[in-house]
């Protein structure tokens, strides 16, 4: 295989004295959907944020598209074509749906705006109905759609999604996962996905990692991990099947 689009090597991240990541190595190749599952507090969101440079790792290296981005400031990293739908969604609550989407497109040539808008509305028709609504009054599922749509408006090469299914009804989860698959298949968008909903995530992903306590303990194709007894026991029992 060619060079990965994103790779982390031996990444250690600390919050003050507390260590959150203890040497994480992952690779995400262009055109892949890669997922990471793990228990609460394993360090999944920390890895996402570390990739985005907030916080920076104390040790190790992150390479994106052939460039070392380990110590770059966040806004510069995001300008290289990475977009994130962060944990907690972080929608601008006083702004309307349209304004939120414009914020997502703030670094993109305005000539793409209308067609990109059509694209995300095609993906999430619900957003189109709510275009004038303020972020603060949207439902949880709508917020999640908006967070993904806002990230897409920046025309990313790599999309980072932190628990897009959190708190959503099964039907909405399916809708969102379908949307991710569609983006990946039709446009070749590379997706790195952090999920608690292991069953759906592993079915969707080409490859997957399992994180325990700030370290990667397992990796393989989605199907492989779905078939493993220990994974089923730890992350799937009572899950969504």
């Amino acid at each position, binding site marked *: 295989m060619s060079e990965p689009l994103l790779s982390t090597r031996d990444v250690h991240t600390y919050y003050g004295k507390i260590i959150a990541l203890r040497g994480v190595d992952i690779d995400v190749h262009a055109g892949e959907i890669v997922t990471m599952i793990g228990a609460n507090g394993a360090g999944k969101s920390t890895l996402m944020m570390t990739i985005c440079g*907030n916080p920076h790792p104390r040790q190790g290296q992150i390479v994106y598209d052939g460039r070392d981005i380990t110590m770059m400031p966040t806004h510069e990293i995001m300008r290289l074509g990475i977009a994130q739908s962060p944990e907690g969604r972080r*929608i601008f609550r006083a702004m309307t749906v349209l304004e939120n989407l414009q914020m997502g497109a703030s670094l993109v040539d305005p000539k793409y705006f209308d067609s990109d808008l059509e694209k995300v509305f095609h993906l999430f028709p619900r957003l189109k109905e709510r275009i004038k*609504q*303020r972020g603060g009054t949207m439902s949880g599922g709508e917020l999640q759609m908006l967070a993904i749509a806002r990230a897409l408006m920046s025309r990313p090469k790599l999309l980072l999604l932190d628990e897009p299914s959190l708190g959503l009804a099964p039907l909405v989860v399916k809708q969102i996962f379908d949307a991710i698959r569609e983006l990946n298949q039709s446009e070749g968008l590379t997706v790195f996905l952090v999920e608690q909903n292991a069953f759906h995530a592993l079915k969707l992903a080409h490859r997957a990692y399992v994180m325990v306590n700030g370290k990667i303990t397992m990796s393989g194709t989605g199907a492989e991990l779905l078939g493993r007894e220990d994974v089923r026991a730890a992350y799937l029992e009572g899950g969504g099947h």
Partner: protein
Amino acid sequence: MASTSETAGTGTSGAVPQPERETRLARALRESVIAAGLTAILGFFFLALRTEIETGGLVLSTRWGLWLAAIGIVFVGRLALNLFVFGRLGATTRRKPATTGAGFPVAKVLTWGLLIFAIVLPFFFTIVFPQRDRQYIDLAILIMTYIMLGWGLNIVVGLAGLLDLGYVAFYAVGAYSFGLSAQYLGFGFWTALPLAGLLAASWGMILGFPVLRLRGDYLAIVTLAFGEIIRVVLLNWTDFTGGPNGVSGIPKPTIFGWELGRRDGSFNDLIGVPYDPIQRFIFLYYIIFGLALLTNFVTMRLRRLPIGRAWEALREDEIACRSLGINTRNTKLSAFSIGAMFAGFAGSFFATRQGFISPESFTFLESAIILAIVVLGGLGSQIGVVIAAIAMIGGIEVLRNLDFLKAIFGPDFEPTQYRMLIFGLAMVIIMVWKPRGLVSTREPTATLREKKRISSDVVAQGEGH
């Protein structure tokens, strides 16, 4: 009962049953009588009776007028509150009809009305109040200065959400830029104006740098300290700034190099119109009006541009901003320095209007007043700032002229002494009645087809702050 149809005229809230007027009036009356009675009892010893030390010992005098006035005020006030404030909020469980743009566009009409009035204001006063026109136009100049300052601070606090308690520092920088450049370099107002803006903006940048990482309370405290530092430096750098004596003899603005006045070679001489001191006031008024309009225009433009949108986004969520590729450092600095620039303009106007400046004019109280205007107006609202500035600065002036109160409270009653009390009271009342400021609707700056407003009253409950 017929009374229900009369109150349902508000539009969308037709489904909400209105309480009957009669019972509400009766209840309001009963509560007002109780309140007035309490005032009568409590006030009897404090207001009605008074002991004075005279030669023969203590003498008891009475002040029935004061006592009755207090009872009357409490009665009327309580009645008005019951009928117009509590009733509406309580009985309909605070559900006000949402302004969805379909109704009467109050804000728009008000904006245009105020603008037209502001344009004709000097002529209005010279024609309608020829005796007091100077006083009124002077007041209008003062209010306009605060409107401009409010709009400038609105960029920093209202849009970017950076709580700046030291805004007056930039006002001072602007004033001293002109004062000192006039004194040492012989600059005129129009030369010094851009310089003042530039210097204030650079100071905004310089002060902005160290506080970039701070937020909320900490930012407020540090900016407060900066405001004081600048004032104290101006006060103590006697050789350069004149210290407490300030800078005097600051020139008046000219019209393309010609002065207003009686002398040969003045503007009046040039165009052959006899000089009248009121012309100077009118001229100053239009200068500050123009500067204020410029501030507003720039703010409105910027709000539509990426930088203005970034300010608003920054106020809401810094992390989200950064993850959208926005350089939060530059965004903050630009808010600080553009806000400071307008304060600098206003400051140099202040210097030319007064002809004299000293550090005394730039105390923390000024910052507090400007901030209060912004907060009361509704953070981020341009028209709200105007209303709040008129109410606060105009209100203080009105207080000075309430001579009839002396008839009630006795000849040594000085209403302006109660200025801060009333100020505080008004602030408490507004914050209880309208916690998000007078005009809390944020007008979306982006629309696809037609414009439509969504009242923030609808948003407020979901927002949790």
